């Protein structure tokens, strides 16, 4: 095997799971074919491919927005050309784990907005629920179609040093990034056209079809062609590209709040031929902005009266209103208990150990070991408002501690996890970088479906542990392989 330069000197980080190299520096079998293929390419060829990928992203406007960066707000999402590979056995495990978790989370949301059995049985303490700003009393006793609250989840998984998958966050409100999963695959098809079938990579492109099928099935009106819309906050939102992409791929109208109006507890879309009743809304607007009559009165992104239409069951809203209570990072720590409570099963996927800082003992422990901790706000996402203990200065830590002491309920801490690494093509060389995995699970009346794949985010800065796109992360195409056929040959598709 002839090896190009780029392949030499790959320095896997010690005590970290590397997706490509086993500890004895042998290439793990799923990567063999890719590595063999890449080894035959020259550095120039690979550079060309990298350049092509960037040009394609730029030309197609596959961008996202970084806030508070001072410079031009729209950026392309950095893409690494080397795919991340997940074996079919690994995928089966992840898939089972996510299905189990999502089933429990949906049961939890139904319970918490109705009978609250889990609180009465002291599994989840009542004050954690009632102090959560996303526990919406407006949703109390409101029925939702098929008792599904989470229709789309973007559960973030990481792998620890043993290669075990752990759940970092559940993202049950408006998970984003699925358009990059789709676009990354399209780009990879152009970069390595022959590699995908020869490796037996499973397709992800049925995602929009599955999503559309689920959305349609939620229609309160029993009609053959219900009106489904995608409600976007607008062009300044970081995920606007995704909103347009999904609307286009599903063939539904992309609307903003001002395009909708509520009359007599029904939602209508303004069209050139008059009002058209809307049955299902896939919204990418936060709960508190959704209805200025019920939530934030100053919101100009929402639709006044939509909560009334939802309560009456005249419109389905995806994801349901009020999911934030299950997304709260303090409540996240109880998800394994929820699985045991509702399903009478042991959790397949483990949580990252989490210290709730409202507990004085936990707080003391965390403060004493802050260098080994990541402290997060319970109600933020996207990597905002975090403290990475190992990288922060004394003053930063002191300031953060003061903030914690003001409202300890709003913080949790987790030990810094050595995220797994995967090879990335950076400056003509393969280099290990930290990654995570976000599969997109769709929950509909006929069950939970997860397209085999997801978004692998990568911390492109050397040594960085933060993969969030808002914090300078990039992404990779994520390959889930078909199970090897009995002969050991890969099935062709």
């Amino acid at each position: 095997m002839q090896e190009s330069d780029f392949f030499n000197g790959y320095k896997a980080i010690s005590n970290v799971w590397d997706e490509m190299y086993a500890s004895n520096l042998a290439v793990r079998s799923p990567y063999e074919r890719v590595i063999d293929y890449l080894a035959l390419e020259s550095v120039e060829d690979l550079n060309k491919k990298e350049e092509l990928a960037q040009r394609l992203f730029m030309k197609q406007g596959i961008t996202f927005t970084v806030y508070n960066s001072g410079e031009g707000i729209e950026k392309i999402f950095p893409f690494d050309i080397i795919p991340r590979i997940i074996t079919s056995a690994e995928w089966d495990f992840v898939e089972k784990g996510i299905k189990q978790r999502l089933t429990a989370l949906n049961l939890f949301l139904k319970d918490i907005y109705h009978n609250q059995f889990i609180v009465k049985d002291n599994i989840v303490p009542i004050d954690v629920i009632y102090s959560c700003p996303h526990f919406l009393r407006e949703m109390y006793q409101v029925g939702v179609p098929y008792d599904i609250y989470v229709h789309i989840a973007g559960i973030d998984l990481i792998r620890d040093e043993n290669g075990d998958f752990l759940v970092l966050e559940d993202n049950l409100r408006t998970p984003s990034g699925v358009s990059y999963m789709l676009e990354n695959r399209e780009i990879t098809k152009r970069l390595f056209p022959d590699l995908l079938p020869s490796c037996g990579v499973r397709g992800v492109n049925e995602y929009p079809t599955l999503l559309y099928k689920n959305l349609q099935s939620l229609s309160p009106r029993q009609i053959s062609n219900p009106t489904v819309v995608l409600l976007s906050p607008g062009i300044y939102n970081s995920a606007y590209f995704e909103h347009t992409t999904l609307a286009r791929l599903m063939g539904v109208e992309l609307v903003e709040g001002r395009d909708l109006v509520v009359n007599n507890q029904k939602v209508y879309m303004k069209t050139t031929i008059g009002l058209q009743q809307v049955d299902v809304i896939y919204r990418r607007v936060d709960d508190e902005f959704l209805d200025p009559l019920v939530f934030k009165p100053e919101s100009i992104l929402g639709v006044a009266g939509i909560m009334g239409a939802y309560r009456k069951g005249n419109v389905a809203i995806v994801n349901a209103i009020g999911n934030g209570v299950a997304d709260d990072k303090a409540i996240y720590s109880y998800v394994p208990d929820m699985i045991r409570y509702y399903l009478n099963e042991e959790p397949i996927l483990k949580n990252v150990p989490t210290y709730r800082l409202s507990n004085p003992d936990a707080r003391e422990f965390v403060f004493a070991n802050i260098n080994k901790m990541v402290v997060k706000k319970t109600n933020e996402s996207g990597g905002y408002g975090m403290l990475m203990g190992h990288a922060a200065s004394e003053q930063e830590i002191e300031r953060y501690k003061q903030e914690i002491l003001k409202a300890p309920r709003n913080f949790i801490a987790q030990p810094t996890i050595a995220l797994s690494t995967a090879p990335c093509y950076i400056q003509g060389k393969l280099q290990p970088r930290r990654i995570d995995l976000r599969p997109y699970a769709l929950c509909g009346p006929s069950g939970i479906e997860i397209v085999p794949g997801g978004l692998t985010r990568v911390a492109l800065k050397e040594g960085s542990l933060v993969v969030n796109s808002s914090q300078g992360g990039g992404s990779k195409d994520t390959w889930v392989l078909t199970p090897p056929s009995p002969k050991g040959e890969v099935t062709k598709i």
Partner: protein
Amino acid sequence: MPEFKIQHITRYTYDGPVRDSANQIILFPIVDIYQEVLKHDLSITGNPLVDTHIDYYGNEVGSFTLSEPHDQLVISSNVIVNTHHRPLPVDDIFPEHQWDALKDLKYTVPYIDFLRLDYFEGQDDLQGIVEAEKINHETPYQVALRFCEYVYRNFEYIKGVTTVETRIDEIWKLKAGVCQDFAHMLTEMLRMVGIPARYVSGYICPNRNGMRGEGATHAWAEAFIPNFGWLGLDPTNNCIANETHVRLAVGRNFSDCSPVKGVYKGPYGHHLNVSVSVGYKDDEPEPEVNLFVDKVVKPSTSPVTTSEPAKNSYQRYLEMIQQQQQQQQQQ
């Protein structure tokens, strides 16, 4: 067993035609053994369909929309209510037992919501006062009455210095306000010593010698007294809210009970005019008097004013849109 005829008119007038208004009303008197509704007529401009539901706190809430262009919206609620005197707490249980009973409620629904304190600047000062006022060996009932009197004596009743959005910080600094502010102050003090307290909106029906809060919707507080239940306390008049107080809604604070609120589209400002008149059985309601006139409020589509002088309102509008769109968490 007094019977009251209450006429409550809410009138919004707009400077021009507005449309697509969505509104929420909490104007349905609570029905229980101390209060029965004999008749309730509701008439609204344009006769929209009013959909009602029961909210988290057990209040009946109505909502309706008015999509056609309109330049005024009048919500006229005419109620005949019959109230019954509720005997006062006997209060013959040892104080410690009563306080212990309250402690047990801290982590139970619904009391947890009526015990939660939100941090505000004057909290430490208030805590000091609350501690001083709470004399050992007094029962929760006695403490509640004392706090009610404290608010009545130490806060000045002045109309117009506060609005529905005034926060407890400001009330504390001003030491003045109207019934709503008094009620907020009292609920905060009661919660500080562990007595569950809720906000009540309703009407006060005076016994003809005049009481504060007539002519408009009224607000007071309720304290949870062991072995008794919710006791109405009116800090604006320093009295127990009993058969002269007609309850419309209960909640944590004003915004849970807001009698009328709405959102509309259009470039025009609005004026709000509320009148409440109360008559006894067989009497005609007293003539309508406008006792509460809201200042002109900018329509919801107008920009929030900022302190930056250089930007015109169009630029500020764009900025606001941008900020709100960016705030949407895409996880």
